[in-house]
């Protein structure tokens, strides 16, 4: 096991870099964070459409969410990787097609999380904003969204964990992220698959377990803050 780490550890972390493209764990993290960053504004739009007053927008958003939820991510990746370049007439780097597929997929899930955050706010918040004479835009962006998003921060961090795990599908379309690199290592060292995939699993585990612990911690803190329990703790 240690031999493999000694020999391929650097590759696991950064792929072929600096002799080739950046890959490995570094690429996995970049793909995941970029995907989440791009998904976020899309998800907000979907959430606003889902919870808003406009019927056509509501129907479109709901249709999008339900359709995407009905399709395996792998299918979206195939569409993005094989069909999209055909449709637009020029090639796209596999890494980008992976990000596009994840963004489309996650927009539906993250959109629902944020929509739930908006619906979870007390009615009085909108009413109070209206009573102050605020219009739709300031009510939404100054009153509703900041609170809704704050409350669903644990859900958002949790989606990052999900995205990291989903990015492993990049190995199927030869994106040189963590899983792909280790598949390469495995074909070099044919006799040690258990160690190699053990290391791969452990790497994901450490990363995702740490993030899910962070999610739990955030959840407790935010729940406490919402119910004002922090105050009690401080006094007691």
């Amino acid at each position, binding site marked *: 096991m240690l031999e493999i780490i000694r020999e391929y550890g650097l590759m696991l972390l950064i792929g072929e870099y600096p002799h080739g493209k950046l890959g490995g764990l570094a690429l996995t993290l970049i793909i995941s964070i970029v995907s989440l960053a791009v998904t976020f504004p899309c998800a907000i739009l979907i959430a606003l459409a889902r919870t808003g007053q406009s019927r056509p927008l509501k129907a479109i958003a709901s249709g999008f969410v339900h359709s995407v939820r009905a399709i395996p991510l792998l*299918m979206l990746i195939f569409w993005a990787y094989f069909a999209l370049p055909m449709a637009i007439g020029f090639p796209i780097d596999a890494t980008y097609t992976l990000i596009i597929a994840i963004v489309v997929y996650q927009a539906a899930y993250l959109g629902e999380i944020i929509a739930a955050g908006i619906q979870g706010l007390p009615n009085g918040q909108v009413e109070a904003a209206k009573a102050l004479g605020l219009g739709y835009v300031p009510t939404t962006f100054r009153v509703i969204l900041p609170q809704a998003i704050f409350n669903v921060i644990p859900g958002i961090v949790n989606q990052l964990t999900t995205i990291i795990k989903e990015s492993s599908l990049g190995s199927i379309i030869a994106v040189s992220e963590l899983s792909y690199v280790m598949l390469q290592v495995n074909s070099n060292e044919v006799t040690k698959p258990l160690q190699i*995939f053990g290391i791969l699993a452990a790497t994901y*585990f450490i990363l995702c377990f740490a993030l899910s612990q962070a999610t739990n911690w955030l959840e407790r803190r935010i729940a406490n803050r919402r119910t004002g329990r922090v105050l009690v703790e401080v006094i007691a």
Partner: protein
Amino acid sequence: MGYHLDFGKVLQGEYLDLILQGIQTTMVLFVLSWIFGLVLAIILTVVRAVKFRPTQLLVAAFVEYHRNVPMLIQLFVWYFGFAVVLPDAVNEYLNDIGAEIGYAIVALALNKAAYMSEDFRSGMRSIHPAQMEAARSIGLTYLGAMRWVILPQAWRLALPALLGQTLILFKGTSLAAGIGVAELSYQARYIEEQSFRIFEAYGIATAIYMLISFAIMWLSAVLSDRFRLRVK
């Protein structure tokens, strides 16, 4: 653009057969992993409910492994990793009978068992402790209270999450393509390579996935509504 959609090309002869085989394999993966997963989940839940530290920790480790490692990697571990601990003769035999699908079912079932047991557990935890107290006050034994009061509520509370896991499992069967199981998305990819009918091949596979997913979603909505537990 010189591309004309022609679904007829893909929906005939050999290609049609491959698609039908793909659907069949997908459904076998889905149904068998679901059943094994659910049974194992119930066992795990019971084991974890028994207050014995070592087994509780073991179950917790099992759950955390399956929740924090990508599904695809779990498939790799079984497919690439498990083979080396078996004797060559066994491997040869397994490869002859199509071991990939067996590994895929094991990996998917174990993964679902981990998630479903968590759903059961949180179902149990969302029951107010006073329910147990009230059941015992009537004179029910601990097991009687479990059987007639706690579990009937727990499975209802866990049901929406379990149904959600069912849909995730259905879509997750596509990952078995990653270890060469010839299920629906694998066949779509193969047909696309052979026929160059990209949009038709993926279009049909996507439509089939959506159709079955929608059926699962519809059934989930019906069941969730039918068995919803309303607590004041």
